């Protein structure tokens, strides 16, 4: 299996080093989800209606 996690390391900078100087907000660009939106169109709109489970813990 390809090492997805290495290829997909965050586009945003990592958080602060914990030195107490306060947080620096990552600049988060909107992800490119065009391909994912195409995949979402294939999701059956009624699948949640059919999805029935027993109560668990």
């Amino acid at each position, binding site marked *: 299996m390809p*090492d*997805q*996690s290495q290829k997909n390391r965050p586009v945003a900078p990592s958080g*602060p080093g914990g030195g107490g100087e306060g947080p620096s*907000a990552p600049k988060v660009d909107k992800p490119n*989800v065009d391909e994912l939106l195409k995949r*979402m169109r294939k999701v059956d709109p009624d699948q949640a209606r059919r*999805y029935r489970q027993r109560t668990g*813990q």
Partner: protein
Amino acid sequence: MISPTIQFGLETEIGISSDAEGEVDVVSESIALVRSATEPGVWMCWDYDCEDPHVDMRGFRVHELRQDTDEANYYAQDAARELSFVEIKSDLVLGNGARFYNDHAHPEYCTPECRTFDELVAHDRAGERILMACARHLSEQRGVAVRLYKNNTDFCGHSYGCHENYLLPRSLPWETLAQGIQAFLVTRQIFAGSGKFAIETEDKYVSPGFQISQRSDFFCELQSVDTMQRRPIVNTRDEPHANPKRFRRFHVILGDANMSPFATRLKVGSTALILEALVLDPKRTYPLLADPLGALTSISRDPKFRWEVALEGGHTATALAVQQSYLSAVRDTCDLSVPAKAALVADWESVLADLATDVMRCRNRLDWVAKMGLVHDFQRAQNLPDGDPWLQSLDLEYHRLDMSEGLYYGLEQSGAIRGVPDELVVRRAVTQPPTTRATVRGKCIQKFAACVTAAQWDHITLQGRDGPIKISLVDLFSPEEVLRCSRAIDAARSPDDLRILS
């Protein structure tokens, strides 16, 4: 003061469905799924004799749980299956120290006990890989796809849990723990929630609408020993699975199942650090919510994400401010010279700052923001109304464990998610235990599976030439002792060589 021993693990109930025609028998599917496991392990040897979920941390034992009647009914229904209790449970204890079984009607994966946040995240993801291998195997056998969802609801009022377990010193008085952590648990959903496109109540769908937590609709008690009905914010079950004179197991049942490893790490890591702070400074005061149950749902359902809460004494605050109070306590009290703890605190602080500025800044780390952003993008593109049932179907699909189909995994693969562990580390956790007493359980199973006759969190029994060899794990928490036992198992040529550990 020396930092206390705090170890942790997750137990996650998984939703299951199938592409087969007709109604799905979820119990049968769950049993079949567990039995499709191909990872080496020990089958149906879980020792139920020493379990008692009726014992309460407040010093008494309840006669019955609210779920006992339901369970009796389920067992009566399950009697028609012509399977014994043990066969229905189908417990499998794996070589990585995990437990995998059918809990009522859900496949449940319990990670082994972990000592570091990295271990916990890797083993949680390893469980996803093991479950998906089972689903592929079962789908191939049947020629019909079996689908798995790591979520907490069927959108019709039936919830199932992702429970957290924290081992901590018994010296921390129960009331100090229960009171001190309550406001933290109620407010941590602002980063630990997985998001839901529905409003529900027990056994009922109420209305469409987005909220930040999957589970917050299902709690109506402050404290109790129950877990299936009238669930409490603070669960009082007293089953330490360790020396009861030295340890407690704090059993947290109100959290959501997280897909994002960053969210899993932050949820468990921040909770573990709060527990450490409580142990180190039990006299410190924490915010007290005027109406914790009301706050749980009002925070989750607040469409403006202002998260205002009333405090005891008539003041108001926000969930963010409450979390800042707990963060300050951790900064003041815990030993943050440990790099993993310092990094966790930095991430916690950063998330709170980003949520305060613009919640969408967290869509690369937190499940609820990632899901909301993705589904809203789709909703806009397709011009769907807020009540469209497609939104719930997409919500469900976010939690699908199939890496090539699930929407969370689609986000991850597009590079949109931070904090994803190296897949090689996850793959290793599929077969190898973490650096806790789980090493003893895992290695015994790896090496002498055919001789294991009983397993529990706090002991494992093997059949030796001269009788049973029971290895107690009730006090095995120092890394040095774990290493000594691990070496003994490595050197053993037969179970009889392990008698020195019994």
